[in-house]
């Protein structure tokens, strides 16, 4: 028993050392502004949308959760799939916002994206789709609001923030 557990502990120690080494030598892993993953407020995101910048929303939840409700235009990429993405496959965006309900998973996906070279991957300061909705911003809701309707509403919010109760930081 002790021998088995010792072998397990040794293997895990080696795996941890590899992660530390990888983290230290990954070219894009360096966090900025003392944050492991930087944040952007919804107001800042809406300003970028208004300016015509390319903002990609990455929904880090399961596919069924994404189908039930998501931020307009969001693509569904969970933590296990995130390594398939990089700056090029995302279409060279100006900003990538990873999110989930309250950004437990969103944070991990944004961190993984930054480690894959997507330096513009952030999370919402308001934390997740729950924070997004609290700002009065629209979502696509299965059977209630289509992608087209929600995108039109979002565009309207970007141009007239007062319509969506968005708080300016």
């Amino acid at each position, binding site marked *: 028993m002790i021998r088995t557990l010792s072998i397990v502990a040794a293997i895990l120690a080696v795996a941890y050392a590899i992660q530390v080494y990888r983290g230290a030598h990954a070219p894009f892993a360096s966090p900025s502004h003392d944050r*492991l993953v930087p944040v952007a407020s919804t107001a800042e995101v809406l300003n970028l949308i208004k300016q015509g910048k390319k903002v990609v929303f990455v929904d880090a939840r399961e596919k069924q959760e994404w189908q039930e409700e998501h931020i307009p235009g969001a693509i569904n990429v969970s933590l296990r799939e995130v390594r398939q993405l990089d700056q090029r496959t995302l279409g060279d965006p100006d900003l990538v916002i990873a999110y989930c309900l309250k950004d*437990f998973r969103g944070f*991990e996906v944004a961190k993984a994206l930054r480690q894959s070279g997507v330096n513009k991957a952030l*999370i919402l300061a308001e934390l997740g789709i729950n924070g997004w909705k609290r700002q009065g911003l629209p979502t696509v809701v299965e059977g209630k609001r289509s992608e087209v309707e929600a995108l039109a509403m979002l565009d309207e919010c970007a141009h007239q923030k007062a319509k969506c109760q968005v708080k300016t930081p």
Partner: protein
Amino acid sequence: MSGEDTMSGQISAGLKLRAHPAAVQWFIIAALCLPGVTWLSTTGNIVDYWRYDVPPGQVMYVASKLAALYAFVVFWLQLIYGLLGHAGRTRLGIERGHSFHVKLGSLMIALVVLHAGLFVLGASVRTHKFASQYLTPSFASGYYRMVITLGIVAAVLVMFAAFFAGARRLWMRAWRFGHWAVIPAFALASVHSLLIGSESRIEPMTILYTGGIVIALLVIVWRLRSRSQPGSSGTLQMSPASALPHNAHR
């Protein structure tokens, strides 16, 4: 006929269990390493969560995921260990006695409590209010809550099974039927983990989950077949120690 003789008869009448003890040991080592290695591959250097600013509750969330992955593996080991019985375990070279079964079960319950506790605590810290919704079953509040509910039901069944094992002196043989709750609990825990776990469907973990579930099913079938053989006692014997007088394995 003693409990052990009955069990040996069941095994010889059922499927043959043969494996090299060293192979079993390395299989267990792999099963114990994979969750940690997979978690490290997605979490990276955990020290970064203290070194840099992260959203409140994030450390508890990642720790909760690690507890969940190990809870599943320990649950699986516990299930197999119990179902094999003394003779099956002896043949595989993993017999550690009844007390090991109790210790492994206690560890599994501790991991389940840690997983749920850390997740609820993390969510509460994140949202600045007690996240009681993750402790309340609901099948009608969307996919996420439904899958969490499966986990809650699995945890309740585990507690139920542990209670029956702990109270076996009161109910004598009847406790075994209550202890069978571990099987639906394992099924629900597997579904909960596979449907919502971030790491459970990452490639090496998929192999562990699939292999673990298939092995569990085979051992359950073997156990049920053994019970139906002529000459079997017709009752579930989770361990020969439980068939002995209660003070015999003290």
